[in-house]
């Protein structure tokens, strides 16, 4: 910090912005600039989803005015019942995958960080390898497996694949945090007669809540946004996710832009709210000092 806190509180509130060093202004400006750049496409989508069709084409960069404001995109989308089904599919797949990734990831992380057994190191390498190799390389084999198991066009196939995709990173991160839980705490629990499962669920997991929230946040987004596996493994009408479903509105000859933009805007809502939920946990966990 280049400025000191010697002024009384009342004076500090009225300190002009330029009382700050120029380097900080530059940093803030560039950060705001990048934020605008990144947000511009999203903003465009949101703005234009509230406009009538002509207004979108005549003036795509303007805010919706009283003349151009129209909810027709949204009414069209929400009237279609299959859009709700797509949302439901996305939701089910994302939540189920997250649940299993966190549960098994935490348990695996606990196993390899806490217990000494033959092959511990090799197991670690195996999981680390999983981070380095992209799962999409094995798409053909995965499709063959799903066909063999009769799981094509089921949500189960998607959940299985996403769990496999998300586990390595989850395990690596969670095992780092678990290694930081003080050894004496676990010993004390063992002396209290608590069995290993209870120690895991009731002592260790509450202490690594911030880590779990972190893993949840950046595991969830790639799953929700994924187009690849839904397209390959579950393209049927009943199992489409929202990302896949929106593609339908983009036709070869004529595109219903209102519907596309409206459904894209709606698609943002669940994942943003899930993120908000977890990130609050994350921050609360860190500031509460839950992890010693």
């Amino acid at each position: 910090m280049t400025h000191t806190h010697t002024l009384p509180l009342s004076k500090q509130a009225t300190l002009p912005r330029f009382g700050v060093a120029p380097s900080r202004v530059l940093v803030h400006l560039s950060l705001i600039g990048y934020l605008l750049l990144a947000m511009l496409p999203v903003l465009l989508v949101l703005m234009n989803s509230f406009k009538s069709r002509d207004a979108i084409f005549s003036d795509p960069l303007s805010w919706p005015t009283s003349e151009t404001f129209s909810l027709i995109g949204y009414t069209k989308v929400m009237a279609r019942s299959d859009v709700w089904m797509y949302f439901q599919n996305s939701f089910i797949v994302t939540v189920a995958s997250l649940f299993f990734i966190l549960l098994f990831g935490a348990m695996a992380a606990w196993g390899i960080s806490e217990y000494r057994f033959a092959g511990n190191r090799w197991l670690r390498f195996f999981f680390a390898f999983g981070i380095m190799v992209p799962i999409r390389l094995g798409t053909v084999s995965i499709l063959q497996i799903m066909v063999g198991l009769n799981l094509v066009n089921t949500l189960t196939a998607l959940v299985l694949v996403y769990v496999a995709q998300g586990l390595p990173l989850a395990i690596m991160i969670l095992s780092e945090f678990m290694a930081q839980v003080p050894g004496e705490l676990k010993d004390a629990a063992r002396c209290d007669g608590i069995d290993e499962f209870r120690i895991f669920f009731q002592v260790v997991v509450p202490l690594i809540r911030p880590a779990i929230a972190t893993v949840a946040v950046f595991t969830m987004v790639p799953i929700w946004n994924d187009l690849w596996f839904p397209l390959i493994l579950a393209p049927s009408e009943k199992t489409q996710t929202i990302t896949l479903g929106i593609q339908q509105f983009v036709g070869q000859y004529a595109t219903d832009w209102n519907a596309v933009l409206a459904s894209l805007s709606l698609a943002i809502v669940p994942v943003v709210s899930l993120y908000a939920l977890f990130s609050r946990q994350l921050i609360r966990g860190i500031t509460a000092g839950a992890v010693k």
Partner: protein
Amino acid sequence: MASVTLNKLSKSYGNTPVLHNIDLHIEHGELVVLVGPSGCGKSTLLRVLCGLEDISSGELRIDADVVNNLSPADRGIAMVFQSYALYPHMNVFKNMAFGLKIQGSSKEDIALRVLAAAKVLHIDHLLERLPRELSGGQRQRVAIGRAIVRKPRLFLFDEPLSNLDASLRAKTRIELSRLHRDLAATMVYVTHDQVEAMTLGDKIVVLNEGHVQQAGTPLTLYQQPANRFVATFIGSPTINLLPARVLEAGSTGVRLQLADGSKVLALVDGSQLQTGESVEIGLRPEHCSVDESAAHTGPDDTALHAEITLVEHLGESNLLYLKTDTDQELIVRGDGNAAVRLGDAVIVRAAPESLYLFRADGTAAPRLRPGNMRSAHVH
């Protein structure tokens, strides 16, 4: 309460032996202190007793049961850790109740036990607080409370006072002593602080490099150490050691010649010694006196000419650091009221009965007239 017996207990980590053939017996209601330098194996021994480490060979019995393969809870043991190890996300009440809840005790029973323990330890007003809202001393008491509510056969303490500041340490030491008496509990206590060991223990076990050097009452270890290591470990400041040669050895005393040529008598049992053997004599700083002249020196006394090089004034005594003619360094505890000056040439005097004698291999010759070895607390 329980008695504990260790029979040739050994432990190795892989190929590295850490504990060698430990033989030990702890009576009902005894407070035994395991003491020794860092790395001597005392914490490992405690963890083995607890059941957190397994035993490589040998037998561990609590009362009559062989408990080698039992889990900590099944052994009826409770442990208080150095860092207290309280569950950070549970309040004090839940911390103390957790173990009981898992065992399946009823809610009323748990509440009764927790409140009773909290009262004894003066933490009953803190039951709703989280560990991070407590001071070090309060956390320590919660850790002890968590052990008490389980009504174990055996209490284990792993350096519980090391994280406290000096004044709190002294106060808590006395409270622990009182707790031991009130609970009439069998306790095993690990520390590296010999003052804690001397004041708390009914019995002290001195460990070094995984071997038991000696086990006995504090005063026995002080007056009759079995070897050089125990003699230097117990007693602060450390005992002075002087090289000497045996002139005449018998069961009623040993005559020796010191490096400066003077001849002294040590009242130790010299029946195992040979004439001409190189030994070391031990002089405790508190058993020596410092005189200006040789007027008080008896014919058999040890009298060393030395010069004062450093003085530490403790108020109740002076610690005098001296150097003899033969460049031997000595520490003597002198009267706090005596006026001394650096550079004073003095005579360090010690009576024959206060001398210790150690052979080249470290074993001690038994003293024939050791000082008081009877504790006021022995019933």
